[in-house]
Structure formats: C-alpha cells, structure tokens
C-alpha cells in the first residue's frame, strides 16, 4: 500500500465531509466558529486513529456477526477517554462542544472507517487511514467554521476582523450551516471535476 497516497486521500479525494458526505451532524453542529471546528476535528481524529489501530489488531478475534457491536464498544471507550480528558484539561472547549463530544461515537465516519478499512487492513495502514480521514475531517470543519465565523460574527479564531454591525447573523445560526456547506460541496465538486 502506497502509504503516502493512503495519507493524503482524506484531504480531497476521499474527504469525509465534502466527498463521502458522512459525519454531517457534528459538521453542521459545531462549526459556528473555527476553533470549535478544529477542536472537534482533532478529537474525532484521535478516536479514529486509536479505534482503527485497536480494531485492526483484534479483527481476527471477532466473530463476523458481532463485528458491529464490538467495534461500537471499542469506539465508545475511546470517545469516553476523550470526554474525560477534555473535561479535565480543556474545560472551555468541552463546554463549547457540549453534546457533540459523546456523539462522536455515532459519527458515521468512525464506524465507517472501522468497517471499511481497519477490519481489512494491517495496523500501520489503518492508523494512517485514521489519521488521513481525521485530518481531512478537521480541515473541512475548520474551513466551514472559518467561513461561518467570518461572515456571521466578524471574527476568526476569536480575532475581530470587522465591526459587529456588518455581520450576517444567519451564518452562525442553523440555516447558515446548511447553506454554506451546500455551496462548499458544490465548489469542491467543481474543483474535483477539473
């Protein structure tokens, strides 16, 4: 397996948000600011990499019919680790991401990679796959979060760019998430075609 290709696929070619259209819930839910997007992206990447590694290690011990529940338990364990670590060391990020942290366990991306890749490949490839998809996810979240933050609150990473009087509040609200994502996907599709 060409590990370089394995590593770079997550950014554009197999970007989980723009191409595979997975993991929509956190994508729309936590991208009201770039830093939230980044935090969620990195947390998910951690779970992806660790779960992929463990699942790849134990794949031959798991009978086929209990594969999905077993994967889910392993993923849930790592999500809880992230929850506890964040609560202890990054309390303000923990508060902003709120409900979406435990929801990483039902992020279709994580279970999807476990099923499609980690259960069929060796440990190193699985780890790199997790890293690639996770970073691609983070990239998408920061992009979406950044656009929404700039248009909706005049700031980026909490640095004020222009006066609050000119913001279009809709972008940090629910409709804005859908609309910006729609246009982003259309835009990325165009890039991929050319």
């Amino acid at each position, binding site marked *: 397996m060409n590990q370089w290709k394995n590593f770079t696929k997550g950014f554009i070619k197999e970007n989980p948000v723009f191409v595979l259209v997975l993991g929509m819930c956190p994508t729309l839910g936590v991208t009201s600011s770039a830093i939230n997007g980044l935090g969620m992206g990195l947390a998910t990447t951690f779970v992806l990499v660790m779960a992929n590694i463990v699942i790849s290690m134990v794949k031959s011990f798991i009978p086929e019919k209990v594969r999905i529940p077993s994967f889910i338990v392993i993923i849930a364990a790592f999500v809880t680790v992230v929850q506890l670590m964040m*609560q202890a060391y990054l309390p303000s990020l923990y508060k902003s991401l709120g409900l979406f942290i435990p929801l990483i366990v039902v992020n279709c991306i994580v279970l999807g990679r476990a099923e499609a890749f980690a259960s069929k490949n060796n440990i190193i490839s699985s780890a790199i796959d997790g890293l690639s998809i996770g970073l691609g996810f983070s990239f998408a979240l920061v992009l979406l979060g950044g656009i929404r933050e700039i248009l909706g609150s005049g700031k980026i990473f909490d640095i004020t760019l222009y006066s609050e009087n000119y913001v279009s509040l809709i972008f940090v609200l629910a409709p804005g998430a859908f609309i910006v994502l729609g246009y982003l996907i259309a835009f990325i599709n165009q890039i991929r075609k050319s």
Partner: protein
Amino acid sequence: MAQRESTFINMVVTLFVITLIAGGTLGYVYTLTEAPIAIAKEKAQKEAIKTVLPEFDKLSNPFKVAAEEGSDSLEFFLAYKNNELVGTAIKTYTKKGFSGLVSIMAGVDTDGNICGYQVLEHAETPGLGSKMTTWFKSTEKPKQSIIGKSPKTTKFTVSKDGGDIDAITASTISSRAFLDAIVRAYNSYEKNLESNTGNKK
C-alpha cells in the same frame, strides 16, 4: 489468520470480553482524570466569583440557601477582605431560557446592590440571547445595565413588561430569563440576611 467462527458462545464471549476490557480501561482513566476535573471546576468557579465581586482575600465555604419557589437551592459564597465582609456571590439559575437552563454567578455587595455577574452556562442563540453575557453590564447604556442597582429600588423586569431594564434587542425571552435568575438570587440573598442578621461573620 482466519476469523473466528460466529457461534453463539464465541459471540457472547467476545462481546463480554471487549466490554470488560473497555470498562476496566475507562475506570482507570476515570480515576486519573477525577482530580483534574474537580480542580478545573473549582478554578472556573473561583474565577467567576472574582469577576463578580470586589477584591477579596478570603472566601467562605459555600453554603446552600433554598430558593423561594422552584426546587433547587442556590449556592452562596461570602467574600471577605481583612476579615470584613465585602460581598456575596450567588450561583443562581433559570430554567426559562430560550434553550433551557441558564446558570449565572451573581455578585451582591454589602449595600444590597448587584455589583457584578457572570454567565456560567447557557445554550442561548449566538448573537441574540448569548449577548446576555455583556449586555446587562453595559457601561455605555445605563438603561440596560443592572450593575449598581437592586431589585428593591429598581424594577428588575424588561421594559416591555413595565420594568426598568432594557431587554436585548430581539431576545426578550432570554432577557426575561436572565432577570428571572438575578431576581431569584436576590430574593434568596434577602432571605439569608433575614435569618442571619448578626450571624454574618
């Protein structure tokens, strides 16, 4: 390596073992993080109290006072400087927020006026209700500020309801909820004063 057979026994055992290992690992991580989590919580609380009260050098142990109506009691913190009481911090709440619970640390000085507040927790709409974090302490627009005022002398309801405080533009519900929390804190403060006159130190 061939995969194990999907017999009933195999499936149950596998799931059980995985869950056991997962549970055990988590128990371990939990004991590791228990202390830092408690410390982080306490730190955030102390920071909030510092923001809402004038300078102090000693904080009493928190004690609970029953809220007038509503089930949860409020946590009180007495702050002292050079052994003299400088203010009371009250952790209050309201469930009437637009998106539910809003938790606020309110500061009452020794004259019985609100001297500060900090919104601890809320899920209000960004750009609208979320403005409550700064709106009611505005120094430029005194009609919307509650600082230096007391529910005894000023009507702590929004102007729309005949009160004296200007609500956040387009966020009447969040504003009402905010004031509800502050009034709740103040009522408990009064109640505590009544039952403690002479016992404040």
